């Protein structure tokens, strides 16, 4: 079963690229997404026996489920999106030139490979395999960012490829340091073994390895100051890809850091790794706050908000205790909310033909459902009750206060406050007000303005994040706490 989770999307991806039928890739995408989520559900019912290489342990299953759910929503959206966009020249709305898109089969094939590599990254139980999987996610997602064939997306793809590859190369060095730390101790190199015998590892090399892991996988996760690729890639990729990058990929990198944090905690070096995580968390939140204040590009704004939330995850994990459970809950809520926002942003871009925040006005009036989703997404991402992110941010704050870290707690609240104000200004001016410049004649029909395929995935994801805010099932909370215990974060 566990191998099927990896094989189904890979095989479907290969078929999508090879079968020379126009409609085949779309069918394969939907079928594979549905099959994947069914298999993942199967893993919850009957976990496969663990091996040294891959296993569906609790944290892995949790993140795999987020990925799978998001992918299903994205697959649904992609079908409609491709029907509208593919096979014709499109006018670029920033500079006015015409461009075409990447062939559909390649795009869908890479999407499916992306799902396969992310699944592998969540299930890997060996540091080497984990590295291979995370690097592979970079390579298969680079063509996705270059879907719109024009020079801006090309620039974004280049930055993404180079920065992430170099970053992840450093994580490989971390892997070797980990091997050196375990050398001569007859410890198996899979994560469970490393954790069980963590105290026997050489602490100096282990610490050095962790720093490299945070820098390496942190590049992929979007922690500042290694985040430079993220706003570019998110703003130039199609919205579906941005949603997957933000909601699923960043989480996979976070899981990798989390696993190594667990090993350091088991080795009694938890204080060291916690401090590093708190530090990077703060830098990320502060960087995001600075760039959010004067942001004028809607998708870059969402990208910086992702950096902020990755900072919150790192911070929560670093604080530990209940805050670590809060961070996992936050990862789930953030994925749902951010994916919904990116999809809605994609709709807005199509409606207004611009990404410029200053030119998008009166969304609620022009497109009521999209506008409602946009406002709901804002409330969710800014941490308003009754959405899930409010609850998880509060849990992290509680954790900080309970462990007596007043300074951390106040810094956390301050940055959250600044970001809240910045986001309010952006979202509210976009949503309310009356739009004079919007060209009614261009898309006059209401059904064309808001086709149902572009709304349903957003509504479903939004309902999810709302439900998490109203009621966290005790089973889910138990599961999150068990996952934190399994990783070994104290």
């Amino acid at each position, binding site marked *: 079963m566990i191998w099927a989770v990896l094989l189904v999307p890979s095989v479907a991806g290969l078929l999508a690229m090879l079968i020379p039928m126009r409609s085949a890739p779309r069918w394969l995408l939907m079928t594979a997404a549905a099959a994947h989520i069914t298999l993942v559900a199967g893993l919850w019912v009957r976990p496969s026996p663990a091996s040294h290489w891959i296993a569906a342990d609790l944290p892995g299953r949790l993140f795999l489920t987020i990925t799978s759910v998001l992918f299903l929503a994205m697959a649904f959206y992609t079908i409609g999106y491709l029907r509208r966009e593919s096979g014709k020249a499109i006018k670029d709305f920033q500079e006015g030139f015409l461009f075409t898109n990447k062939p559909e089969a390649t795009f869908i094939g890479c999407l499916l490979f992306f799902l396969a590599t992310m699944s592998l990254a969540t299930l890997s139980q060996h540091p080497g395999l984990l590295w291979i999987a995370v690097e592979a996610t970079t390579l298969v997602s680079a063509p996705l960012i270059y879907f719109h064939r024009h020079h801006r997306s090309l620039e974004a793809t280049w930055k993404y490829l180079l920065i992430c590859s170099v970053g992840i190369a450093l994580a490989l060095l971390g892997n070797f340091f980990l*091997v050196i730390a375990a*050398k001569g101790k007859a410890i198996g190199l899979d994560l469970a073994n490393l954790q069980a015998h963590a105290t026997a590892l050489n602490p*100096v090399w282990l610490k050095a390895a962790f720093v490299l892991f945070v820098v390496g996988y942190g590049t992929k996760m979007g922690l500042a100051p290694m985040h430079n690729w993220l706003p570019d890639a998110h703003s130039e990729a199609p919205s579906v890809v941005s949603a997957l990058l933000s909601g699923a990929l960043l989480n996979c990198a976070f899981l990798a850091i989390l696993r190594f944090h667990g090993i350091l905690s088991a080795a009694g070096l938890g204080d060291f790794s916690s401090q590093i995580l708190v530090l990077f968390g703060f830098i990320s939140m502060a960087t995001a706050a600075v760039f959010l204040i004067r942001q004028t590009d809607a998708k870059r704004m969402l990208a910086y908000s992702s950096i902020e939330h990755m900072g919150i995850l790192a911070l929560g994990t670093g604080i530990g205790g209940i805050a670590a459970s809060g961070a996992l809950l936050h990862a789930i809520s953030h994925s749902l909310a951010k994916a919904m926002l990116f999809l809605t942003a994609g709709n807005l871009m199509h409606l207004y033909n611009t990404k410029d925040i200053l030119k998008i006005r009166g969304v609620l009036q022009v497109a009521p459902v999209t506008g409602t989703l946009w406002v709901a997404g804002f409330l969710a991402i800014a941490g308003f009750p009754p959405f899930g992110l409010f609850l998880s941010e509060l849990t992290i704050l509680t954790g900080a206060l309970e462990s007596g870290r007043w300074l951390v707690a106040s810094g956390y609240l301050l940055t959250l406050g600044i970001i809240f104000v910045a986001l309010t200004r952006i979202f509210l001016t976009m949503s309310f007000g009356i739009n004079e410049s919007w060209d009614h004649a261009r898309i006059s029909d209401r059904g064309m303005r808001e086709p149902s395929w572009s709304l349903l995935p957003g509504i479903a994801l939004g309902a999810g994040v709302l439900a998490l805010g109203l009621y966290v099932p005790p089973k889910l909370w138990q599961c999150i706490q068990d996952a934190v215990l399994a990783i070994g974060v104290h």
Partner: protein
Amino acid sequence: METFIDVLIILLVLTNFRLLGSSRISACIQTTALQAIILSAFPIALHTDALGFHLILLSGATIVVKAIVLPWLLRKTLREINISREVEPLMGYTASIIIGAALLGLCLLISEPLQSTHILGGRMLIPGALFTILSGLFLIISRRKALTQVIGYLVLENGIYAFGAALAVEEPLVVEMGVLLDVFVAVFVMGITIHHISRDFDHIDTDRLSLLKD
């Protein structure tokens, strides 16, 4: 065997200086191929007692991927984009070599506390590998052409691999092969991207790729 390994490491250090001081991109590609051959000798020289199928396969794969396929791929890209030199790098060649020398000193200094009995290859291995890593990083940040940056990435990879070579017995073969495959695909995808960049922009100067910013 100690002296043989020392010779290999000195050769590795010298190739780095050649990379730092060379303006011809094809010479740089050739040097990375040379580095790969030196590196492929590492696991065999270091583990003479445990010499087996695993290590020989690893060395062979390294030579095939890093000394034959990747240089061929880079040369092909080089021909397509029709440039031969790194003109006006952000940091001149003399300056690069001086910085390289300083970096080498730094590596010797910081590897002193890291020396451990667990690493094969004598006292030169850690500074040599670290220096290769730093040279790669320096090439990435100090050169303009996208292709030279890919070469920098390869050098960085080589430096990391030098560490790995000392531990080749520990790491399972599957992992090593996976890493090689990833590096190969990474360079392949970068090559395609460079091809697109040169077609769309008529140049591959990455410092002029600066449309996206805040």
